[in-house]
């Protein structure tokens, strides 16, 4: 099925794009991650220009997080106050990201920075997931795997920040600067890489802010929803790289994939799924590392002036 992407300016196999969206949809159905971290690099491998890939992936993540936010808010799993602060930070971050984007683009280093960030990100997530999956499959293989006592206190750095607010739903009395900065950092990544950043937000909210577990996923989805919306708009206004046809195909895939994801989750053993996902993530990281460190696909790149 040949589909012409008007902004990316090339024709692709639409089925492939839908399948790619489906893959990320399955991931969101299975693990509750947006899957943007897979969409962008896979689109780039397929030949979509990096900027178009990042911009359209951000649009897809918006769609992928809507139903999650709705579901979590129904069961009161969103701390709106905390979410609001993080969204505010995220918006600032997206604007900073946009500035960085054009700065790096002018310096001609945007591709390298995107690749380096991806290698770092995918490499660390991939190895963490791999470790977790192996531990679950072979208990005791990687040393002590017993349930650790969860640290309920937030990071001492967070406690030292001035001007505290009460976040009732999260069970916290901390400075809003901490979630603001966290949201900002993730916002920059969303703009640069087209990722929602849930895989960074969730552990940071748990272990750095020390939020109570039942509102973490919902609140992170809430932040992702709004920040990806802002990112889509920023891309539409600055890089003009949002491809509606591409985003539509990805969305179609993720809508269908999410259905599959929940069905698979009910049947298959999650350890194997996690192992498969970890392998995929690590393979992509290695592929990008190869391009960065050993041999790039192309020595020359053309930029239209």
């Amino acid at each position, binding site marked *: 099925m*040949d*589909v*012409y992407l*008007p*902004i990316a*300016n*090339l*024709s692709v196999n639409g089925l492939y794009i839908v399948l790619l969206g489906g893959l990320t949809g399955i991931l969101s159905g299975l693990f509750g991650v947006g899957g943007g971290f897979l969409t962008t690099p896979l689109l780039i491998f397929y030949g979509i220009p990096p900027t178009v890939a990042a911009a359209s992936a951000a*649009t*897809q993540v*918006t*769609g*992928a*997080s*809507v*139903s999650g936010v*709705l*579901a979590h808010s129904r069961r009161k799993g969103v701390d709106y106050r905390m979410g609001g602060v993080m969204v505010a930070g995220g918006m600032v971050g997206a604007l900073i990201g946009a500035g960085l984007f054009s700065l790096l683009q002018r310096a*001609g*280093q945007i*591709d*390298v920075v995107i690749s*380096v960030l991806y290698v770092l990100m995918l490499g660390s997530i991939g190895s963490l997931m791999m470790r977790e999956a192996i531990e679950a499959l072979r208990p005791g293989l990687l040393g002590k795997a017993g349930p650790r006592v969860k640290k309920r206190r937030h990071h001492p750095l967070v406690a030292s920040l001035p001007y505290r607010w009460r976040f009732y739903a999260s069970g916290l009395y901390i400075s809003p600067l901490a979630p603001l900065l966290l949201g900002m950092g993730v916002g920059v990544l969303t703009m640069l890489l087209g990722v929602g950043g849930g895989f960074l937000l969730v552990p940071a909210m748990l272990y750095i802010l020390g939020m109570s577990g039942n509102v973490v996923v919902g609140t992170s989805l809430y932040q992702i929803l709004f920040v990806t*919306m802002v990112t*889509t*708009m920023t*891309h*539409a*206004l600055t890089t*003009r790289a*949002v491809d*509606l*046809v591409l*985003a*539509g195909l990805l*969305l*179609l895939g*993720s*809508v269908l994939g*999410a*259905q599959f994801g*929940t069905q698979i989750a009910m049947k298959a053993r999650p350890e194997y799924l996690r192992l498969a996902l970890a392998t995929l993530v690590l393979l992509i990281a290695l592929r990008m590392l190869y*391009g*960065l*460190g050993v*041999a*790039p696909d*192309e*020595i*020359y*790149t*053309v*930029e*239209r*002036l």
Partner: protein
Amino acid sequence: MSLAARLVVVLVAWAALTAQREPVLVPEVSQSLIEVRQGFTGARLLLYGAVIDPEGAGGSGDYDIVVVLKGPTEPVRIREKARIAGIWMNAQDSDFRSAPSFFAVASSRPIGDIVDERTAAIYELGTEFIQLSPSGTIDPEEQARFARGLVELRRKQGLYQENPGGVRISEKVLYQARIDLPSNVTTGRYTAETFAIARGRVVASATARIEVVKAGLEGQVVTASQRFAFFYGLGAIALSLGMGWLAGRLFARG
């Protein structure tokens, strides 16, 4: 009549005579308008025509035909990666003011067998002869390296093509060339130049124009993203919210 005047008359008469003896090219293009719309996977362009020899069909005519199809030119910056601290990153760059977005040469025989290098360079008969108009002040060696990099890259993308043997001549009169435009072509005005070459000399040439435009929904999407960026962005957000919400509804029921 002075000697000078007589000389002028002779020259004019000679020019007229030889001009009459020069063959005439009558080119035709299968499509003068290519519309890029949904499902566009590229287009096959047929460039055909006839070489009319004043000495009659099948006269002395032993021609080679070269067809050059060129897309709109644009200024570009070529960046070259180098390994810095173990990482391949962009290091040097070079600007060219007129890089054609598309360039294809089809000929009835390899260009090297038809004309010498000088003639090939004058008429841009080959990807190594594209006049890129380098700007800036780096030395010619380096400019040539960057130009080769550009050509190689665009050749891989199918945007620069060389097809010796891509022109078929039948009965020494009719010629026919096929050039495939890939789906990633730039829109704009393309020019197809046809050259009839005999004994290493261009004896006739003709130009045809082809317009490549984005049409239908595809054209509207591009126009919207450029002219109504804010509403385009809103549309993208609405699309993702709508589809996400719909997915949520389907979930709730399923």
